[in-house]
């Protein structure tokens, strides 16, 4: 794990001391060099002085906010990866930040292991540029994350972008249908389930959703995934 990270230092930007501490402690065990900044101005100054590989960036800070820092980093140092730190319920701004080129986000509270896994994953994605990384698979992944957190509006936004990135995949349409059904728009949901089946008649989740939604069986769960193949599938798409 440690070897794959390389030795580029990490910059943590947050006005809250406890967040800086939690993140530093979590990442120290990865043998990474860690630096911290308490606001946007200090962050930009530190970026001038050192070649960082990764920034963990809080959006809400007094003075120059995270979004502005992100904008400047993208202009001057597009090679640096940025992970957004967000509070629960403010996922919209995190999505906004992803559009600006952040590679991922993490919601408070976070477990040390979670931080390490995310940092490792992001640093491992070296060969893909941040822009390209936001393709179909990433949006689907994000959408599911949003659904897990009950952030249905943001999830729908990701699904739409996923469909725009690759309109030939049944999974995207199925997810869109599921979200519409959760939002109470049953007719639109049915339409999308059918469209998903039309694209790929073997895609079972859409068939199951269509059967269930069309028959008002209240017990059935909305199916987002194929039972087990998901992981391999997503790995495959990323590669």
């Amino acid at each position: 794990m440690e070897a794959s990270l390389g030795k580029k230092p990490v910059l943590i930007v947050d006005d809250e001391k406890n967040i800086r501490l939690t993140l530093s402690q979590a990442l120290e065990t990865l043998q990474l060099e860690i630096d911290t900044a308490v606001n946007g101005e200090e962050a930009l100054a530190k970026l001038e002085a050192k070649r960082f590989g990764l920034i963990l960036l809080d959006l809400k800070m007094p003075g120059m906010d995270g979004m502005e820092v992100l904008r400047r980093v993208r202009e001057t140092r597009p090679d640096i990866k940025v992970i957004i730190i967000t509070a629960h319920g403010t996922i919209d701004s995190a999505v906004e930040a992803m559009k600006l080129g952040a590679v991922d986000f993490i919601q408070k509270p976070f477990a040390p292991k979670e931080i390490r896994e995310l940092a490792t994953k992001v640093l491992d994605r070296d060969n893909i540029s941040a822009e390209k990384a936001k393709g179909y698979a990433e949006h689907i992944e994000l959408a599911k994350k949003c659904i897990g957190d009950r952030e249905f509006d943001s999830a729908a936004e990701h699904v739409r972008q996923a469909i725009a990135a690759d309109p030939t995949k049944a999974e995207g349409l199925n997810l869109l249908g599921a979200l519409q059904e959760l939002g109470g728009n049953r007719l639109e949901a049915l339409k999308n389930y059918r469209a998903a089946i039309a694209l790929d008649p073997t895609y079972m989740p859409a068939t199951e959703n269509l059967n269930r939604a069309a028959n008002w069986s209240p017990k059935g769960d909305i199916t987002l995934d194929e039972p087990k193949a998901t992981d391999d599938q997503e790995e495959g798409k990323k590669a």
Partner: protein
Amino acid sequence: MANDLFIVIVGCGRLGSHLANQLSRAGHSVVVVDTDERAFGNLSPEYSGFRMEGDATEIAVLKQAKVGKADLLIATTRDDNVNLMVAQVAKTEFGIQRVLARVFEPQREAVYQRLGVETVCPTAVAAELFLKSIAKEGPA
């Protein structure tokens, strides 16, 4: 005990806040959940963990606290039934290995130990310490 566990503490009263302060100081990542925001006033200034306002008997709140990623959950509210429900949900629904619950009523303790919840009963603990002390010193 490894020194960077992710620990969720339910209830930020005297016991909950004390545990949170100690565990946070020991280097663990701690989340404290309480229905009343004012309860977080019990946390020390050095406490470096997270605070979350919410009712832990709602699954949605436990999800938000990322209980699924926790190494340990401690239920310390003043309501035995809340503690026992949260503890069982953490175990069965979120699959957390280690779950501790405070239970005031000693009669309940036995039943919940049968359900696999590790309980601590302050009355029983105090009684035991008193008895030990008496046995050692003898009556005055």
